[in-house]
């Protein structure tokens, strides 16, 4: 017979895109604490000061107790920036252990190789952004495609803390470096299929099951189903990363060639130098073609900047890749059977792999964990492709609650052109149905129909045995065991 365990879940309010969750477990006389991510999208003074305040609140909430576990889910600014900006505070928090995904494990050759490629890709894309910015010289109206490509690169690099031209995209990587040194014990690098006891509690009261990021051993690359982006085929894991990195190199070379001396590879790419022609005058056939191309009335057919749209594809790729590298945890309150699902930013590829997880403990079943889920930290700020329909439809608990770490006033969401649609309309609708309107968003404003003070919604919360507590800096519920 195990002791009843309950969990107090605190979502900190970051006033922009970001994730920061503290879970305080209680089991009899014992208590234990876990922090999952601490970051927000931007790194300016306002963001840093807000994070500092919030980290102070976390310290207060710990009440002098140790922070048993800190989880860093994946290398994006909006999940890890606090571990760079508030290092002193974290150093003083008596952190016992840090949990990271196997992809951060320096002792794992596969992870190291992926890490190298990933690092190169990131640097090349930052280089591409910087070159494109330089080439564009602010003439965005005259070159809309180039301007859009620059915007997409900037959006993506924002997740690596490189919002400004010239900044290296290294902040999340620095955060992981710091996290590796933070705990009193060595960090754990988690692979799917593993089940851990929550430290600081009697064994068997709270268990943590690792669902992602996917990893399959001894399978040919061509058959690795995991990091395939759904629905299009052809994107498998590290091999695709290597290939994308190479394409990014050629893309960056092309951008740089405009201003620098071309690299020796670039000189022979895609054809030998002897075939390449610049402007020609006189009566050559090429001069005729060039005049034809340059006719003003035909300028609508020109393609000078179309190739830059590849930036969008590359940016999307690295973004999907990073999100799919998310550490996904299902936290089980053993006695009551309740499960809290923290999906980080996992996208479809990660979700799909959960069906194929080989559990160390054969008694654990993915579908069973999903069926008992009573709390869902909505994946990737409720973007449309980060909650896989087929999997989420297995989550049917009548008392389900969802927290969405989205602040609707984030400039990425409020911008007039190409705004990010978070939360995604159809997912939001489905969440409202499944939770009977027990959905809370970080800004506590939206949506009005989910206002917990509204009578019908209040009744729904009560029937689930919960009472959400909203303060200036956090939103909290207490899941009883």
């Amino acid at each position, binding site marked *: 017979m195990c002791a009843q365990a309950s969990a107090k879940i605190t979502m900190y309010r970051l006033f922009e895109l970001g994730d920061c969750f503290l879970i305080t477990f209680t089991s009899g006389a014992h208590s234990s604490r876990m922090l999952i991510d601490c970051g927000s999208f931007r790194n300016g003074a306002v963001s840093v000061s807000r994070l500092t305040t919030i980290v102070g609140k976390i310290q207060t909430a710990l009440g002098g107790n140790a922070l048993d576990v800190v989880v860093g889910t994946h290398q994006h600014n909006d999940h890890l920036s606090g571990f760079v900006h508030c290092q002193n505070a974290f150093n003083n928090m008596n952190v016992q252990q840090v949990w990271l995904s196997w992809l951060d494990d320096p002792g794992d050759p596969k992870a190291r190789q992926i890490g190298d490629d990933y690092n190169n890709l990131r640097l090349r894309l930052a280089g591409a952004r910087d070159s494109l910015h330089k080439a564009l010289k602010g003439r965005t109206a005259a070159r809309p495609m180039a301007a859009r490509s620059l915007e997409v690169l900037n959006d993506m690099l924002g997740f690596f803390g490189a919002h400004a031209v010239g900044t290296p995209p290294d902040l999340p990587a620095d955060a992981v470096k710091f996290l590796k040194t933070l705990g009193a014990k060595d960090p754990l690098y988690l692979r799917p299929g593993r089940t851990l006891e929550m430290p600081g509690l009697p064994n068997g009261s709270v268990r943590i099951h690792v669902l992602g990021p996917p990893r399959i051993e001894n399978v040919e690359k061509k058959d690795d189903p995991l990091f395939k982006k759904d629905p299009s085929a052809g994107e*498998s894991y590290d091999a695709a990363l290597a*290939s994308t990195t190479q394409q990014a190199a050629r893309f960056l070379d092309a951008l740089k060639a*405009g201003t620098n001396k071309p690299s020796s590879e670039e000189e022979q*790419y895609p054809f030998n130098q002897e075939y*390449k022609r*610049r402007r020609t005058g006189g009566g050559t056939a090429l001069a005729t*073609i060039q005049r034809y191309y340059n006719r003003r009335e035909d300028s609508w057919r020109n393609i000078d900047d*179309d190739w830059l749209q590849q930036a969008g*594809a590359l940016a999307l790729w690295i973004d999907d890749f990073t999100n799919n590298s998310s550490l996904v945890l299902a936290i089980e309150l053993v006695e009551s059977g309740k499960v809290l699902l923290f999906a980080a930013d996992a996208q479809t590829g990660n979700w799909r792999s959960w069906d194929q997880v080989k559990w160390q403990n054969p008694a654990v079943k993915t579908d069973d964990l999903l069926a008992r889920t009573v709390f869902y930290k909505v994946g990737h700020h409720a973007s449309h492709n980060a909650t896989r329909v087929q999997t989420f439809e297995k989550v049917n608990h009548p008392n389900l609650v969802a927290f969405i770490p989205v602040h609707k006033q984030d400039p990425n969401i409020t911008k007039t052109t190409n705004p990010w649609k978070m939360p995604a*309309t159809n997912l939001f609708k489905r969440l409202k149905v499944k939770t009977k309107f027990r959905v809370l968003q970080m800004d506590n404003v939206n949506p009005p129909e989910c206002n917990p003070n509204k009578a019908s919604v209040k009744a729904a919360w009560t029937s689930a045995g919960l009472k959400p507590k909203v303060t200036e800096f956090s939103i909290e519920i207490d899941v009883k065991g």
Partner: protein
Amino acid sequence: MISSPFYRYLRGYSLDPGFSTRLDTAAINEVVYRIPFESLQPGPIGEYVEVIDFDPASGCWYDPVDLGDERIASQNGLAPSEGNPQFHQQFVYTVAMKTIRHFERALGRKIVWYPRIGEPKGKSDSVVDVRLSRQYVQRLRIYPHALRDANAYYDPDKKALLFGYFPAAEQSQGANYPGGLVFTCLSPDIVAHEMTHAILDSIHHRYMEDTNPDVAAFHEGFADIVALLQRFTFTDLVEHQLYASGGRLDRFTVLGELATQFGEALEGNRGALRSMIGRWNAEDTWEPLKPSPSDYLNNVEAHDRGAVLVATIFDAFQRIYTYRTRDLLRIATNGTGVLPEGSISRDLVHRLAGEAGEVAEHLLHICIRALDYCPPNDISFGDYLRALITADLDIAPEDETGYRLALIEAFRARGIFPGRVSTLSVESLRWNNPSFTPKENDAINWLADRMKLYIRELVETADRRELYKRSNKAQGWLNKLLMGEEKSFLQDSEWEAFLNKMGLTARPVSQLFGKDSSKVRFLRNGRADGTYTPRIEVHTVRPAFRAGREGRQIEQVLITLTQRISADIGTDGERKQMVFRGGCSLILSLGNLNLVEHVVIKNIKSYSRFCKQAAYLNGADGTAPSQSISTYADDDRDWRLNFNLLHRH
């Protein structure tokens, strides 16, 4: 005086360039293409296409090839070479013209690119009232080295094909040299595929609108069908592959794969980009694909569903081939019809390849001709099946070789059924013959009389620019007639009933869906308005002269009529504008313009179709979004197809 030759002969690849470095395929990968002769400027720039070899990412140009240069012309063009950009120009031109040639022969008329549509002036969201300027586009533009990306696409705004090049995977896969370059413009499949998008757009411009899950799938699938069947018209190649597979089409051959080199060049992707007959399983054994009645329903993503259409046509191809070669096999096997394992006689292979080539060409032309029997917008696979059957009945009423039955069987095997058809017989699949009242026939006579002169002018025209101009004139005139000038001999209600038979209406939108109209928030120029009557648009007036496999000639006039309304379909207070179209494709007999042979309609008054489209665009019907722009976009749809995104692999 020397007359112009009929044909130009140009060397090129029959498969992707990679096959030239494989011992088993090197001998048949380089073939001589035969395309219609035309005089060319360096580029090549001809009547239909212009190749412009600007490589913006590399910041350079490549000298244009002059196919009229005697040093080149006298040796059937430049020798195939991956390292020579001038060969690339020659090759995209060759495959482009080969594809156009197939379409023109099957359709019995000239291809005229869809005109450039000007930007709307003033209120940019106007979709109901604004008449947009139209500009004739003589040539499709082809950029063989436009992108540094594993991508190639048709850009309908630029009327251009853009081809990319990219480094192949570092690991050795298939015939690729690791890290070597792959040029998409050197794959005959990819070039034919992109050309088909452009040609299909010139015939059915509204198929660019993503109004149901079949539309994007149709664009993709149809483009692959053309690429695939075109492949089978190279008899040397077919002969070689049939020899290797012991005369059977259902065994692994490179014939059933598309864009092999491209597919192999992508990391972690074993084999061709798309394979129609089978695939390599996890044990590295090749297994043929088996059709299942749930194939259609279970595949909703555009490429998956498109692949179902390709597999269906390929299946029909196999059925016809098997049916037509049974006697040959019996003769060759002392009456058993069972071929021994191992090599088979060269003579037999030669005869089999001849049959396969003929079947492929017939089927390709059946597939293309059916386009004229498709509705003007919102196509479904079921519509296409009915179009295939009707078109083929017109041209080959006997069907001695079982083409139609093979098609029906293949569609049925994958669960593709047209709506509102009680049986899958040829008779019920055929588009219904229109039944007009005597008074309506009078109206048709009256319209036909007034159109005769214009049609005659069109028939006499060979020049494409002139065709475009005269067709526009005829369209304008018919538009005036239909918009109610001089129609006094029909009562209003009779006129409305007449238009309804063509999927159109003359009533204001407030009456469009009967009592359901009140549930719809109609818009006009972006503002709420339920009072307007949608204009009737006349999209094509084109004569066609076709010849079929039974030696039958038919002469028809094709007319496309549509109407559009717009409405707000947003939910939860969010506003979202949707354009909804209806209308018909009319097929008239040229000899007797008063005879309407077929009316293929998409009814503008169909409320259920309206609701289905709205649910689809809102992502509320459970289908996966086919082309989400990014992680940060929503799960609803952009109503216009974007081939750049659709073709990313």
